[in-house]
């Protein structure tokens, strides 16, 4: 292997932000495939053209997914990335690691792969970047030895991820990390053996700040919320904020979307109309030392988040305004099973659940999963007069 020059990529070693090129070079010092990755990438930079072939269907025994196959379209030129498959390894909930655990992982990957990682992939997996077909099975076997299992790919339930949740966040209304751990274990088969028409993603955010972008990126988002009133410590408001020059009116009162807050400057008291609060988190975000989420905790379930393909991007829609989330999450799992069942049954190839709901109608979906229509589900009721009446409804109404 001659040492090819990479003048274009070298440009990306300049500047203060940590450089992925430098990282690849570090790996390339010992790894031929990392070196050829660099070479092929340099070529792409010169031509404005990627050099990976379409397709790549490789895997390990017993699993239908978890590996994304890749072949170079110029294997003669870059023989060491002729096969360069990535392994999607299910991350630890909350992305928590210890030095030991990481080193174990690095040891395995040094042995079988390129020594390059995405920490983490956009869905949440640890992405082990590049190995050969031959190395896949032993690599996965040794990962199993250190306790790491594969994540999802293909028409499967995808690797679940969450925000840090109750582990380190005072705002968490649900135990996000426990929920994804529990669901991940419960749905191993659905994750590892693709049997759906397309991907199905679940993400869990401890509160409506949605630090894992759950409603934008998951077919089913579980977002923490509360049913009672947020907790107000007026003393702390005064001492930690107002008296220190914090402009509570400009920064909080006028920005409350439901206009349910008012500041009694004389008494130094924050008033709230509890039933009007839409639990947007803003006031709590601004005064974390004085305001806290309520105590009657649970989750709002949002269905249908995804990006543009095929029918356009969607942000998840309210499906269940409030559900208690207590281990073992039976109520949730029952509902999820119904949802997936309906989708798997009626969905076409490569049709996400929101697209199916759009095609068949929200009402049809609600009936299938035994949920009642609620005004919380819509931004507004219909404005067009194209109302469908089932014969039974006509009978019942008059």
């Amino acid at each position, binding site marked *: 292997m001659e040492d090819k020059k990479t003048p274009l990529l070298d440009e990306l070693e300049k500047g203060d932000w940590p450089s992925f090129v430098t990282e690849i070079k570090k790996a390339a010092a010992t790894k031929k495939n990392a070196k050829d990755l660099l070479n092929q990438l340099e070529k792409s930079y010169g031509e404005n053209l990627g050099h990976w072939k379409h*397709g790549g*269907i*490789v*895997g390990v*025994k017993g699993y*239908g997914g978890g590996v994304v*196959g890749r072949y170079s379209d110029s294997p003669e030129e870059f023989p060491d990335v002729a096969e360069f498959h990535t392994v999607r390894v299910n991350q630890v909930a909350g992305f928590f690691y210890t030095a030991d655990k990481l080193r174990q992982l690095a040891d395995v990957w040094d042995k079988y792969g390129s020594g390059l990682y995405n920490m983490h992939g956009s869905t949440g997996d640890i992405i082990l970047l590049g190995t050969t077909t031959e190395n896949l099975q032993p690599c996965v076997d040794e990962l199993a030895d250190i306790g790491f299992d594969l994540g999802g*790919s293909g028409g499967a339930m995808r690797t679940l991820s969450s925000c840090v949740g109750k582990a380190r966040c005072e705002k968490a209304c649900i135990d996000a990390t426990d929920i994804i751990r529990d669901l991940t274990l419960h749905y191993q088969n659905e994750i590892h053996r693709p049997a*759906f028409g397309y991907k199905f993603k679940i993400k869990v955010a401890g509160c409506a700040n949605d630090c894992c972008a759950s409603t934008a990126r998951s077919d089913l988002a579980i977002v923490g919320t509360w049913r009672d009133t947020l907790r107000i410590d007026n003393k702390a408001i005064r001492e930690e904020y107002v008296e220190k020059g914090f402009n509570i009116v400009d920064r909080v009162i006028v920005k409350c979307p439901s206009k349910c807050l008012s500041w009694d400057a004389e008494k130094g008291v924050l008033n709230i109309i509890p039933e009007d609060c839409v639990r947007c988190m803003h006031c709590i975000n601004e005064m974390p030392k004085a305001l806290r989420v309520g105590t009657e905790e649970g989750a709002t379930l949002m269905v249908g988040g995804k990006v543009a393909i095929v029918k356009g991007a969607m942000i998840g829609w309210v499906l269940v305004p409030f559900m208690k989330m207590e281990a073992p999450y039976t109520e949730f799992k029952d509902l999820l099973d119904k949802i997936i069942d309906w989708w798997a049954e009626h969905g076409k190839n*490569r049709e996400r659940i929101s697209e199916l709901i759009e095609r068949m109608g929200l009402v049809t979906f609600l009936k299938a999963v035994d949920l009642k229509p609620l005004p919380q589900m819509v931004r507004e009721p219909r404005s067009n007069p194209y109302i469908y009446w089932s014969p039974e409804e006509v009978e019942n109404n008059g």
Partner: protein
Amino acid sequence: MSFIAVEGKQVELDEDGFLVEPSDWNEAIVSIFAKSEDVEELTEEHWKVINYLREYFKKFGMAPMVRKMCKDTGLTLKQIYELFPTGPAKGACKLAGLPKPTGCV
């Protein structure tokens, strides 16, 4: 790309080991593929799945969705994996000589 010899003829495979030329498919190839896909012995059940896939493809121009395949063949997903340890897409479809599934990964 690579070639395998099947009954004296050179048959071209793509890098994933799928047939490049669908018309090359025959029963001898199934046996060869069976090995690479960890299928120890081709049973009647295997053939049931293979034939089902081929007919479905012929009729609809695409592979069935996995759930449909289970329903139509009466096999559970578990059974499919027992028959084809590398799974329906990589295993069963390959043996059936279908184009490489390009669904989502």
